[in-house]
């Protein structure tokens, strides 16, 4: 049932919410990550997301399907790649469930696990240069 996708296209969150809005789901919990104008005290101009697409979709599917079974819910996760401007959504995790606690817990579990396990990387492009973000670290980009 889970639907996952890594895509260059814009995310249409309202459309994703409709996919889990069956009439037996009383609760929908959505998490949207979007591009901030600053990070680690540095001004950000835009982001570039890089993904190992086939593996990212495989891991996303495992995360979503495990959570669907564990919390009894329906899950859609879309993540963007490529260049993202300020304010654009980079990720949407949408969970529909008969019960609200399950919806919150599954949604939070999915986004937390995604950040740790899904092979996607962010490059922050700032006025003073650009930086690969790896976990909590920002590595300035070196000319190769």
């Amino acid at each position, binding site marked *: 049932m889970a639907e996952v996708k890594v895509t260059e296209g814009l995310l249409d969150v309202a459309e994703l919410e409709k996919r889990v809005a069956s009439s037996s789901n009383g609760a929908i919990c959505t998490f949207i*990550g979007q591009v901030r104008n600053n990070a680690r005290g540095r001004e950000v101009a835009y982001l570039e*997301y*890089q*993904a*190992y697409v*086939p*593996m*990212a979709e*495989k891991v996303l599917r495992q995360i979503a399907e495990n959570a669907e079974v564990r919390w009894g819910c329906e899950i859609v996760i879309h*993540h963007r790649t490529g260049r993202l401007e300020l304010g654009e959504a*980079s*990720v949407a995790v949408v969970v529909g469930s008969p019960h609200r606690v399950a919806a919150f817990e599954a949604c939070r579990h999915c*986004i937390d696990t*995604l*950040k*740790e*396990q*899904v*092979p*996607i*990387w*962010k490059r922050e492009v700032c006025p003073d240069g650009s930086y*690969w*973000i*790896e*976990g*909590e*670290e920002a*590595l300035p*980009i*070196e*000319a*190769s």
Partner: protein
Amino acid sequence: MQIHLLCFGHLTDYFGAEPRLMEMPDGATVQDLVEELERLEPRASQLAKRCRFALNEEYTSLQALLTPGCTVAALPPMSGG
């Protein structure tokens, strides 16, 4: 045998973002490939400590055996979301 190497994040600064063909001896492991990469690029000496590795799109251990035509990906700490 030949295997395919994929790099991501800051590693693309050293090894490029395109898949790269590597020649490895029969019986080589992921660990052997990592050591070869560390030799090729001293700035990547922390590779084994910093990265996880995938073999044919599944997380793998350093002890896993390479097979002809397999794809190994070097995955630095991730930052999706």
